[in-house]
């Protein structure tokens, strides 16, 4: 530990106190939303170095470049693929498959959202699906609220199912070495079950009352989904690369390739394919546009956060917290897993799940010795992933995707308010966590 620290005493404080105080203050600022979260994380990371908790070299070691690479690579791939119009095509096709029936549309849009969230990321998915939803509900003269509510749920549930679906899973996968298939086999079955069960209350509350007339349905049926495809050549290239990347995720882990390598390889390949037919000036513009599509705020937030948490970790504070958690659960693995599931769900409904998971990862890693090795931690990792991802459904601020959908709703004059949303969403989220706890207990204990 000594090689990571610049000094034993910082401003008269011990590193534990300094790092702990900085950590708590940063979290409080992130929760207060007074400043952009990326700026807070970057400042906290800088203070970890200036304050002497970490050397600059140690701070760089703390950054999980697998997570950063995976996020960046996927953002580039999705950004280019989006321009082909394929996602709009899928949404319209699914709506026409159910003959524009209002309840059928809700179910289909939920399924498409869940599927895309599992394969892409939640924010991109809702950015693509919410405008289509508003167009369709406007045409059918239906209240958009049930549809947008259902899409929020579907995006968080779908994101739970895969390694790349939600940032907490990316972080857990990177920290533990768990691969795409591990997430798929362990989390996808329960995600599918929860998605199906979530449809029931949505039907009882709104679905059975959704009605429209045939003339309006015909208008939706006149949408020509094929015209949503703007660039067939780009579509073929991007779908081929996306399929290659998915294949890479599935088989690459066995050959020692990390997810970031596969995503960055896919991104570079798609950039080459997208640029090749054009002259140098156009190529520069295309590359610049693709790199601008990366959510740099998110990337810098992750970098700052990794350094902040690593700083706290090197002081031994998170190890102390891990022992405290084990003391509270009497060292019982099942109790620990279920407790982490519920605590992460409730915490993720209130605060951003990314910093929460970043903190929990080293805490859980520190439990390995007590439980008899890293292999024994698997149920706890799945509990953390389920709690952090599904917990996002608990409130409007639980996930970035929720806020994006709420923004669309507000702009279309059908605002989703915090409390009315939470009154329905929080109990539904708790039900999903109860189902998850039964699943974790039956499958792993």
């Amino acid at each position, binding site marked *: 530990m000594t090689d990571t620290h610049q000094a034993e005493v910082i401003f008269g404080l011990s590193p534990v106190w300094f790092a702990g105080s900085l950590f708590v203050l940063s979290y409080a600022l992130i929760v207060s939303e007074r400043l952009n979260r990326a700026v807070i994380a970057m400042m906290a990371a800088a203070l970890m170095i200036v304050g002497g908790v970490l050397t600059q070299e140690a701070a760089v070691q703390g950054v999980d470049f697998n997570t950063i690479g995976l996020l960046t690579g996927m953002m580039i791939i999705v950004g280019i693929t989006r321009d082909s*119009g394929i996602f709009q095509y899928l949404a*319209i096709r699914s709506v026409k498959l159910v003959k524009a029936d209002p309840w059928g549309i809700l179910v289909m849009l939920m399924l498409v959202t869940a599927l895309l969230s599992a394969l892409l990321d939640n924010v991109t998915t809702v950015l693509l699906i919410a*405008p289509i939803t508003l*167009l369709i509900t*406007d045409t059918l003269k239906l209240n958009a609220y049930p549809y947008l509510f259902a899409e929020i749920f579907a995006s968080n549930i779908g994101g739970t199912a895969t390694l790349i679906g939600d940032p907490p899973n990316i972080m857990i996968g990177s920290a533990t070495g768990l691969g795409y298939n591990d997430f798929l086999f362990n989390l996808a079955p329960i995600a599918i079950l929860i998605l199906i069960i979530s449809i029931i209350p949505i039907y009882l509350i709104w679905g059975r009352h959704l009605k429209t007339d045939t003339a309006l349905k015909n208008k939706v049926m006149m949408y020509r989904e094929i015209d*949503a495809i*703007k660039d067939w050549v780009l579509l073929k290239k991007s779908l081929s690369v996306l399929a290659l990347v998915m294949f890479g995720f599935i088989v690459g882990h066995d050959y020692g390739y990390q997810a970031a390598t596969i995503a960055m390889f896919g991104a570079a390949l798609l950039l080459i394919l997208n640029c090749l037919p054009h002259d140098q000036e156009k190529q520069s513009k295309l590359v610049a546009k693709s790199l601008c599509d990366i959510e740099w705020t998110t990337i810098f937030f992750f970098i700052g956060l990794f350094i902040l948490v690593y700083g706290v970790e090197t002081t031994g504070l998170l190890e102390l917290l891990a022992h405290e958690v084990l003391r509270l659960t009497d060292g019982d693995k099942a109790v620990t897993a279920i407790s982490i599931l519920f605590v992460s769900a409730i915490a993720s409904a209130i605060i951003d799940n990314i910093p929460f998971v970043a903190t929990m990862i080293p805490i859980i890693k520190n439990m390995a010795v007590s439980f008899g090795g890293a292999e024994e931690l698997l149920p706890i990792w799945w509990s953390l992933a389920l709690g952090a991802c599904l917990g996002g459904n608990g409130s409007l601020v639980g996930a970035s995707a929720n806020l994006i959908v709420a923004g669309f709703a507000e702009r279309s004059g059908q605002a989703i308010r915090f409390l009315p949303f939470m009154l329905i969403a929080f109990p539904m989220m708790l039900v999903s966590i109860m189902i998850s706890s039964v699943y974790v207990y039956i499958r792993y204990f």
Partner: protein
Amino acid sequence: MNASEAMDPNPRTLRPTDTIQCAADYIMKNRYRNLPVVDENFCYLGMFGVNCLLKQVIPKAVFLHQGLENVGFIHESFKDLYHRFSEVKDQPISICMNNEIKPVAPDTPLTETMMQLFNTRSSIPVVEPGSCKLMGMISYWEIGDKIFKAGGINND
């Protein structure tokens, strides 16, 4: 030279309570692109014009921030567009007034006024400093006429 010398001091105006149908008729008849909206004290409130009308007939999801970028799959007829317009035609124009067009002060230098006209891509209001009173409007045609006249060309 400044904005007060480039403006039309007697512009046509609309009231915020005018209906969209009424304002649309007036705009269409006179081929205006934008008209200033003022209250009973001639206080400038915003602009209403053809873009506001277009917004009423195109699906809402298109104009939302981060809304639909690709609308090639929607195939509508003039009847569909009119149907959408008829739903809002009796609403006051205040519901879709453009408040983002920044007015200029009468003493704004000509070049700065021209820059704003270029960036706004719409006629710009001239408003009395320290109050909201509309003093005139500057349009492309007004400016163009004055430039030609300065060169001895009369388009009248």
